[in-house]
């Protein structure tokens, strides 16, 4: 077994070449020569975490406006040029990052670098573009509000975090989206978009040297300015929180949240293994006991959301027809509590390790996908090297670690329980 583990770890090691330009821009290159394609990604160290009250959603607004023209290229021209080159492009905002990416043929990937360097320096954020785009973003927010679960999760974040910026929705509150001005967005752009606050990832059919020279060519002349990020700590929760959320749904749902640890904390991996044992796959405990065994739920999924400044362990379950939420909650909590008193089995632990190993290898299938992981680890998880370190630590998780983290973090006093209920149910 040990030999297999060592062998598999060797196979899965993600080899990244790291370069830093004089202006502070970090370049991470991942070579994958399976197909003649390259993914170019620019990850900025800014997201909803950085946003003050009253300005929620501003990072996301900027992300939208970043396609609306620069001093050199007109509105939409970025999309046009990439698509004409047969590429696909998009962007997204998360709690700690804003990411722009383009995947395209190897002989034209420099086009994406050229456009991204321009975007980093020359955005216009013109008022006549700002107004209609803000309407688009408001429609995007309405779309989420109409989704049966999105606004429920938004409520869960707002209640489970009391003061931490993670309580704010990434897309922002509607009132803030309406309030933020073009000038606010411009100041946000000038503050956060510069080489020293960004990481460029180039993944695919390219060598490190080639990528380095290309990135230096386009980004080398830009001036960098490091931005200090203030760590924010959620105060310890002092007792269970509960809420009901009424919505026009027929099927209720249940969410149970517990605060966990920063991404670099030593208990992270034990919590991940615990999550896998509870809900990963059709042979997991929740699937066998709650979904299939007792027929209580359509699904009972665990998400251990790994954040830079404090994670979140969430169980989300939708009951089968006729099952009430309190019975489902009782069964889920019983399943969690059992981890505090009875050790997991050897087979469960080995399965979780094997799932982690396999998953790490599967994720190397797509150059764009592994590039995204590298960027995530670099910005949100203490550096890309932790990507490889993480798997080794997963392999070292033992049964008593799982019991200990269950006892430490999955407590009633650290828990928020939410019921999504049909409006008419009083």
């Amino acid at each position, binding site marked *: 077994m040990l030999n297999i583990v060592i062998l598999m770890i060797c196979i899965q090691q993600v080899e990244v070449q790291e370069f830093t330009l004089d202006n502070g821009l970090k370049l991470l290159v991942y070579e994958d020569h399976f197909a003649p394609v390259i993914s170019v990604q620019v990850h900025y160290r800014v997201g909803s975490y950085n946003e003050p009250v009253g300005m929620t959603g501003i990072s996301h607004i900027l992300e939208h406006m970043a396609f609306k023209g620069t001093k050199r290229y007109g509105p939409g021209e970025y999309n046009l040029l990439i698509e004409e080159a047969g590429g696909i492009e998009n962007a997204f905002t998360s709690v700690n990052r804003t990411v722009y990416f383009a995947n395209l043929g190897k002989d034209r990937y420099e086009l994406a670098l050229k456009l991204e360097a321009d975007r980093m320096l020359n955005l216009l954020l013109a008022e006549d573009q700002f107004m209609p785009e803000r309407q688009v*973003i408001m429609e995007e927010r*309405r779309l989420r509000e109409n989704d049966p679960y999105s606004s429920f999760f938004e409520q869960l974040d707002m209640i489970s975090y009391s003061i931490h910026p993670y309580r704010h929705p990434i897309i922002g509150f509607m009132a803030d989206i309406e309030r933020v001005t073009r000038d606010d967005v411009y100041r946000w752009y000038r503050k956060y978009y510069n080489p020293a606050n960004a990481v460029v990832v180039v993944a695919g059919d390219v060598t490190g040297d080639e990528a380095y020279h290309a990135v230096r060519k386009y980004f080398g002349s830009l001036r960098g300015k490091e931005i200090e990020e203030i760590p924010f700590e959620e105060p310890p929760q002092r007792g269970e929180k509960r809420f009901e959320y009424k919505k026009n749904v027929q099927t209720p749902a249940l969410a149970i949240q517990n605060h966990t640890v920063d991404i670099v904390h030593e208990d992270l991996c034990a919590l991940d293994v615990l999550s896998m044992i509870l809900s990963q796959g059709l042979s997991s405990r929740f699937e066998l006991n709650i979904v299939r065994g007792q027929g209580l739920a359509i699904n009972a999924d665990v998400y251990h959301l790994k954040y830079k400044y404090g994670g979140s362990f969430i169980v989300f379950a939708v009951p089968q027809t006729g099952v009430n939420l309190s019975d489902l909650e009782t069964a889920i909590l019983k399943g969690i509590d059992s981890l505090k008193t009875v050790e997991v089995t050897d087979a469960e632990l080995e399965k979780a390790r*094997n799932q982690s190993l396999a998953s790490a290898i*599967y994720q190397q299938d797509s150059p764009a996908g592994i590039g995204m992981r590298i960027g995530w680890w670099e910005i949100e998880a203490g550096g890309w090297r932790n990507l490889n370190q993480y798997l080794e630590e997963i392999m070292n998780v033992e049964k008593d670690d799982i019991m200990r983290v269950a006892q430490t973090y999955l407590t009633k006093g650290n828990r928020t329980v939410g019921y999504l209920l049909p409006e008419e149910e009083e």
Partner: protein
Amino acid sequence: MKILILFLTPFVLLGTIVERDTLDNGIVVLTVEAHKIPVIEMRAFVRAGSVYDPAGKEGLANIVGSMLLRGTARRSASEIAESIEAVGGVLSSFCREDHVGLTGKVLSKDLTLLVDLLSDCLCNPVFDSSEFARVKRETVSEIKAMADDPFEVSNREFRRLVFRDHKLAHMPVGSDTTVRILARSDAQEYYASRFTPNNTFLVFVGDFEKDSLLARLNAEFGNWPRKELVFDEPAESVEYEKTVGRIVPMNISQAYILLGHLGPRYGTPDWLATRLMNYVLGASSMSRIYRMVRSEKGLAYVAYSYFGRYQNGGYFAAEVQTKKDMAAEAVITLLDAMRFVQDSMGIAEIIRARNFYTGYFPLTHDSYSEMANLVTQIESEGLGLDYIDRFADDVAQVNLEQMTEAARKYLKPDRYCLLIVGDLEPEDIAVEGIEWIE
């Protein structure tokens, strides 16, 4: 038969070989060997999808698909899940309109296990009665939960509106009423009539050696007997002779709009021209619909068009979600965009569409999983093993006349179906010529 994909365009995968073999009992096996990572992707497709659901038993094919993993003569449902997941593998079932099947992924060291499980699940499901009841209950609960999601509701109801009595009118999952009445014997009979080796194809992509894989497949599937199949193919779908509209009431802040009609099925010779035309119309951020609805008017976050195609029919849909009071303007904008591509497409847009698809093509198979999906598409659509090889040339030959002809043939801005989910009334949609139906 094999084809070597050479360096004919700048972006094909140099040296990639797609091979197609047929086992003794008729199973078609498509393989692509690659050795970048020690992983194998698998797809198993049986032509037994929801389009073959008997009338009144909609959702049966989907239940049969789920039951493939719910117990065999050798393994219980739990043992199947435990076997594959213990090694970090994945094995799941699916049901689409044309096919039911399994998808899988393992590390290459576990190929033997994957093939063993695959053959066991495909050839020996036992349709255990308690598992059958459980799957039905889970499915009914899922259908009820889907009724809360306006996306799901709008897509389901649009299909019903466009296809009317045709077999494609229902989603593969069926409805809660039809699923509730399904009997175990229905599933057994359906399985017995359609699950045969000569109605099945397999796709393997990744880190294996083809000859030894074929030998193993022959050994594992050798006892699965070939059987003559009688396909009761669905009748042709019938087009409306007028524009019809339907509003599905839902208390939400937006109108979920789907506008479209019947469209081409698999195998139409003008599909590539149609695909490029739709790129200009609504399949990119440079498309007419995206620019007119989103970029210029700020009406919506989601605005696009697509063709849903199957063996026995197809449809066209343009989709927008917007504020209730902008719904009429959104509908008019979609119709304007459709008319534009029928009358006013220019050479610049044709060139852009050609350039996009030629350059984009390698991205459609730049990983094992994407390659497996592409090979599956090639086989199920009958595109031919030279598809990858000839794609760029075929795209280059599409011209303005062909695209305009496709737009005039397959877009019907004067005779369409309009489905809106939301808190609206017909009088909120000030668009002429719509006959509203319940």
